[in-house]
């Protein structure tokens, strides 16, 4: 009977949301203190999915670590792969040949679209619009088919290798990508029909989880959440990597830093990604796929930090090499981990229903947070 007393006598209600909850996107646990339906405190409990990826990185060769990295942010495995490959390449002092660079850009951008589609679907589902989820997955399926055809896997793709890419393009790759890119803006317009102007969507997202540009920078938010707060910063422009300098695209920024702006930023990003892919697929240069380098990867002694704009934000790799085939220290700077920190700031004062909206809008992946 003691539980009953705590339920009704205390002015606060402590609800443990997760780790088994439909909308904590995995195994996130948020300990909510509620006053009625209003949140007065929120503490994240993470680590349920900890697999010691960084430790594994110290015990595997650089090449072997790549498939493991696919399992950190498994929604955007291609980005993880690209980031690590480029970091090691930088340390080695090699550059992937242009053909590989272009293929990398195409696949990474497709991956960004697929990651955003998954975000869109789950985010909309959290807010109750279940149909968007299935429409988004339909388009995501098309991208996964391209991945499967190219690399042989759909999700944990192990797409690139250090020094370039492993696989030659398959026949019909360009046509398949072209067809997708051509069709995709129409599909985005459909999602927007269901959400963007929908009054319920607007009510549920505008003014929810607001974070100012100053706070966003202080909390280290990156990716769409940062841009939605009005900071026009994208690593693809700020520090271009791969072949991004060759393409024209815009960086969408929001103004209010609320859930709605983050939604709009990601929607626009998907269009821009499609634009990049459309440009890149038309001018894939000929040439080798792998840079000339030793089969056994032994970077020189030293350390390197390299980061890329993953769909969720700045994905960085800090590698310390002791000159052997294994990294001395392989640190992943996970965007979701850092972004999730702002959850507390965003939800306090809002209602329970907004907590799921904010968790959704941060676009977290627990595989990456817990590593």
């Amino acid at each position, binding site marked *: *009977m003691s539980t009953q007393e705590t*339920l009704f006598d205390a002015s606060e*209600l402590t609800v443990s949301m997760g780790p088994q909850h439909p909308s904590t996107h995995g195994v996130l646990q948020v300990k909510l203190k509620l006053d009625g*339906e209003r949140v007065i405190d929120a503490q994240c409990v993470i680590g349920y999915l900890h697999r010691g990826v960084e430790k594994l990185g110290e015990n595997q060769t650089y090449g072997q670590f790549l498939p493991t990295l696919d399992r950190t942010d498994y929604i955007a495995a291609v980005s993880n792969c690209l980031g690590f490959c480029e970091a090691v390449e930088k340390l080695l002092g090699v550059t992937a040949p242009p053909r590989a660079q272009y293929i990398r850009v195409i696949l990474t951008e497709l991956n960004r679209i697929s990651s955003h589609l998954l975000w869109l679907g789950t985010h909309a589902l959290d807010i*109750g619009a279940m*149909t968007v989820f*299935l429409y988004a997955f339909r388009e995501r399926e098309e991208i996964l088919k391209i991945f499967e055809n190219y690399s042989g896997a759909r999700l944990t793709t192990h797409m690139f290798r250090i020094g370039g890419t492993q696989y030659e393009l398959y026949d019909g790759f360009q046509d398949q990508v072209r067809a997708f890119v051509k069709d995709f803006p129409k599909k985005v317009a459909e999602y927007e029909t269901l959400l963007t102007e929908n009054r319920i969507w607007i009510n*549920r997202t505008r003014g929810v989880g607001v974070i100012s540009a100053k706070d966003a920078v202080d909390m280290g938010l990156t990716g769409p959440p940062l841009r939605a707060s009005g900071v026009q910063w994208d690593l693809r422009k700020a520090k271009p990597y791969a072949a991004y300098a060759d393409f024209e695209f815009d960086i969408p920024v929001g103004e209010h830093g609320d859930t709605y702006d983050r939604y709009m930023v990601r929607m626009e990003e998907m269009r821009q990604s499609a634009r990049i892919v459309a440009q890149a697929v038309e001018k894939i240069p000929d040439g080798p796929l792998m840079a000339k380098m030793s089969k056994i990867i032994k970077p020189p002694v030293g350390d390197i930090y390299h980061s890329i704009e993953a769909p969720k934000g700045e994905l960085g790799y800090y590698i310390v090499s002791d000159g052997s085939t294994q990294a001395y220290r392989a640190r992943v700077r996970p965007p979701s981990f850092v972004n999730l920190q702002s959850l507390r700031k965003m939800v306090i004062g809002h209602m329970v229903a907004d907590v799921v909206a904010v968790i959704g809008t941060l676009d977290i992946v627990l595989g990456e947070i817990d590593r």
Partner: protein
Amino acid sequence: MEFAINYVVAPLIKIVIILAILPLLVAALTLFERKVIAFMQVRLGPMRVGPWGLLQPIADPIKLLLKEDIIPERADRWIFVTAPIITLIPAFIVFAVIPFGPSINVFGTPVNLYVTDLNIGVLYVLSVSSVGVLGIILAGWASNSKYPLLGALRSAAQMVSYEVALGFSIMGVLMMAGTLSLVEIVEAQRNAGWWFVFLQPLGFILFFICGVAETNRAPFDLPEAESELVAGFHTEYSGFRFSLFFLAEYAAMIVISSMAVTLFWGGWLRPFPNVEALAFLDVVPPIVWFAAKVVVFLYCYLWFRASWPRYRYDQLMKIGWRYLLPLAIANVIVTAVLVIVFGEPQ
């Protein structure tokens, strides 16, 4: 003898028929829901049990009935057990007054296609159906768990607010019909020559919005919002008891749809009941007209669920009190003035 037949035997038979058919209807409705939503979502829905999954509504209840009945250790046992029943019974007994059609002849005796024609039918429906929420509140409380409690409290607040607006939205119809009996309201629509929806469009829209909210369906499905409260008030329920809630919810959907049809869409009447040119439509029996209209509304329920996000609790309250209630009252006032000026539409 005649008294016995009219007031005991005939109603009993009808009650038994309704009690037998209603669960089947609900089962069919679940399949309908899954199929409709699936097709809207470019899926196929259940396909395995029977051709095109047609036997799914039979498989589901069997599964639910065979499941273990779990009562949480800390739950308030008796209330926990009674709550689903409290929810279910009102949802069923409301059907007593809903007229599915006019009298038909069975072996020469006229049989009314309703259990009874209460002269306060509308009031009866409103009051009885609002008892159902008690079960939800009790279920949330008795579970002694946090998500159900939140769901129950949401449900209580939602019911209280929307009950008022729902009542007011019907008032226009009642003034035009001049009666509270559902059968007479349908007859009044025949006399008026118009379904009341054409005379009371705002009233109808308000009624249906409130009805959706009353039945806890999307976009107002807050008491069981699965992405927020896991499953709301029935989180701790399983198997058979869960299926009772399920039954009650879907029965309530049928009630609201039937009420909408009866009050606004001419019940069992064909379109434009007084226009002779459309008399060929009478080939279709009245009960089919009724059923078809109800299905349309049920379809709308599912359609909304497939298309829209979910409101937040405070927004729901705001809509109820700030928009729906004033609009409903305005509707009543305007209707009252018009009825006084032009007289009842006869």
